[in-house]
């Protein structure tokens, strides 16, 4: 009973903390993005101001929308993204819901969040939102293949090399860094998979060059074209949470190292240091994987993005899979 209570309190606190953190990260992302463009950029807490302002605004439901789907979509999307945080180990801390969910569930929740957005777009009754939703679905179908290949390869590798723990569980990869297990071919394999996963990040979080479903200069923010007020605030939170979660997954899979033990820390101090270090890694990942990329490129068209994922990135992830298999076999 006490454990359940503890988990409940810790879970709520974590979700609250992570939501705030995701907004802070977005603020930093916007400032760094601006600085790279020689602009000043908004204040650090601009995303908070945006959300607070939106929460106080009127919630408009278009005449041609389907109200329950239209109003429900943002909540499902944000909740699904939030739920993932309960399954991610943070530093030396095990996930809140340890043992009851694995990588497959995380993938499903990420997918659910994206599908909810598309449903909201379809339910808006606007042409632009409709086009945006179509694009979101197309994009999902394109990046799911390389994403699945990456996850399956890693799980298969964990299973064959006999890493301790469930092969699909994120804790397995956190407990024992993959890089320490693989041989020379495996290192290249892992690099391929890492690059493939990083390439999926912009599409998963809806940022340039893969912000195709929300392209403002083409289809006027597409998916979220008709949203306003509270619903829009939920979508904004969902977007920044997905960014945070995707970066956290990449970090957990490929950069699980902790620092606590190196400094000989113990007890709660160890947990705290590792916890902070984990978020620092996520932050760095976000700067490299999202901010830099969105500064350096323009937007793809939907068929170009599909082609990019189906051929280039899927090819890369398959190459990673083969190299990793060779590593096991040899």
């Amino acid at each position, binding site marked *: 009973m006490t454990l359940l209570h503890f988990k409940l309190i810790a879970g709520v606190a974590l979700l609250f903390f992570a939501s705030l953190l995701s907004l802070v990260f977005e603020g930093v992302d916007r400032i760094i993005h601006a600085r790279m*463009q020689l602009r000043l950029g908004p204040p650090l807490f601009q995303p908070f101001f945006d959300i607070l302002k939106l929460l106080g605004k009127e919630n408009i439901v278009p005449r041609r929308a389907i109200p329950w789907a239209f109003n429900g979509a943002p909540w499902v999307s944000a909740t699904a993204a939030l739920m993932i945080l309960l399954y991610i180990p943070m530093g030396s801390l095990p996930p809140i819901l340890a043992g009851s969910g694995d990588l497959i569930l995380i993938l499903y929740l990420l997918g659910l969040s994206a599908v909810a957005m598309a449903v909201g777009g379809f339910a808006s009754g606007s*042409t632009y939102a409709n086009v945006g939703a*179509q694009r979101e679905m197309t994009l999902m179908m394109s990046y799911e293949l390389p994403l699945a290949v990456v996850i399956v390869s890693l799980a298969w590798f964990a299973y064959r090399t006999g890493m301790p723990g469930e092969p699909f569980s994120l804790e397995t990869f956190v407990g024992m860094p993959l890089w320490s297990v693989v041989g020379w071919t495996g290192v290249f394999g892992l690099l391929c998979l890492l690059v493939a996963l990083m390439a999926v990040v912009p599409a998963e979080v809806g940022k*340039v060059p893969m912000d195709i479903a929300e392209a403002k*200069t*083409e289809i006027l923010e597409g998916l979220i074209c008709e949203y306003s007020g509270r619903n829009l605030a939920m979508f904004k939170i969902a977007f920044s949470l997905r960014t945070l979660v995707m970066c956290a997954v990449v970090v957990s899979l490929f950069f699980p190292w902790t620092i606590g033990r190196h400094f000989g820390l113990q007890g709660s101090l160890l947990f705290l240091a590792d916890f902070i270090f984990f978020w620092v890694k996520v932050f760095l990942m976000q700067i490299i994987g999202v901010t830099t990329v969105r*500064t350096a490129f323009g937007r793809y068209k939907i068929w170009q993005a599909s082609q990019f994922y189906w051929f280039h990135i899927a090819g890369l992830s398959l190459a990673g899979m083969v190299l990793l298999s060779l590593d096991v076999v040899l």
Partner: protein
Amino acid sequence: MAEGLNKTYKVPIGPVHVGLKEPITAWLDVDGERIKGATIRPGAIHRGIEFMARDRNPIQIIYLAERICGICSFAHIVAFVRAVEDAARIEVPARAQYIRTIVLELERIHSHILWAGVACYTFGYDSAFNLGMILREKVMDVLEALTGNRVNYGTGTVGGVRRDITPAVGKVIREMIDFYKNEFGVFYDVVTDDPIAKARMRDVGVLSKEDAIAYCALGPTVRGSGLRVDLRWSSPYEAYCDMDIKPVVPQDYTGEVYGDVFDRFLVRVLEVYQSLEIIENAMAGLPSGDLMWEPKLPKLLNYLKQADGTGLSSIEAPRGDDTHAIRLTGGQDNITWWKVRAPTYSNAVSWPIMFMDNELADSPLIINSIDPCISCMERMVVTDRSTGSGNIVTKSELIERCRDKTRRMMGS
């Protein structure tokens, strides 16, 4: 996606759209993402400038002409003033011609850099857009140093110009030329070497040579289709008479003509270098002498009142050939009629062809690729679907409504 089912739905682009800086409506018939047909409807902003001009004399119209467009305001003035000079047989002093040329080219640099930045913004390349805006500031500063204003320079007049290039301004202009020669290459490389920029602009919005001729396309749009058309070369005016200007066409640089958005981009970017060269030459050969044919305004107005005739002038504005025609009748203070043909007027006719079989994602880029200039909003239309009513609210009524609201908010 519903592609291939031959079912199309209509998507309006404009009159208010994030990707467009000008109010024009393009109704696109879209099948999946592919555009199967397009209907263009301008007219959201027709201000009746030509009608207004009938109650004004040529000097007053200069300020009306300047406000046709913010970016190529000087091009419109020069075209108008040249038409008046043609009708009234006025000869412009050489120094004034050179200064006009310099300002025209400064304006071209301004317009092309702005366009290139906005084109990048249209396909989500915000960094290049910001770089373009930073680069553009320099030429804006020079225009401000020369004329006192950043837009609407108020510099041209019938028979000459109203501002001289002083040694201090000359120094600023030379600094600007050096600045661009060093810095502009970065922008050029950033965009032309970028794989995504190329993927977004290559083979998009193609206008073939035949169509460009048949649909009377102008300026960088027609040059992008590989035709050597440039009024500064084919019918030189002002200081261009003393210079040898080669029309910039893509085949001279890449060896091939696609007639797509990328070629139009290339032409505009390369024309910035050409403009720098022209300014350099004009500064070197700047003759001394008068600035105006007749500096005394009442005397000039009196002469214009006596003048009788039709005048025509076409000049190469940043977006293409800007044509003004005017009729002066002897004994009348005001002009009889005036016709303005901004380049977009002609280029917009080619839009449906450029749209055909492209994607919805490309539509704002295609609209922007001719660098449309549809002037600013002066009235708005209020419609209510439930009652089916529609009425036009003028600017003064809008202001009155705003004040009403303020009073309401303040509780008085």
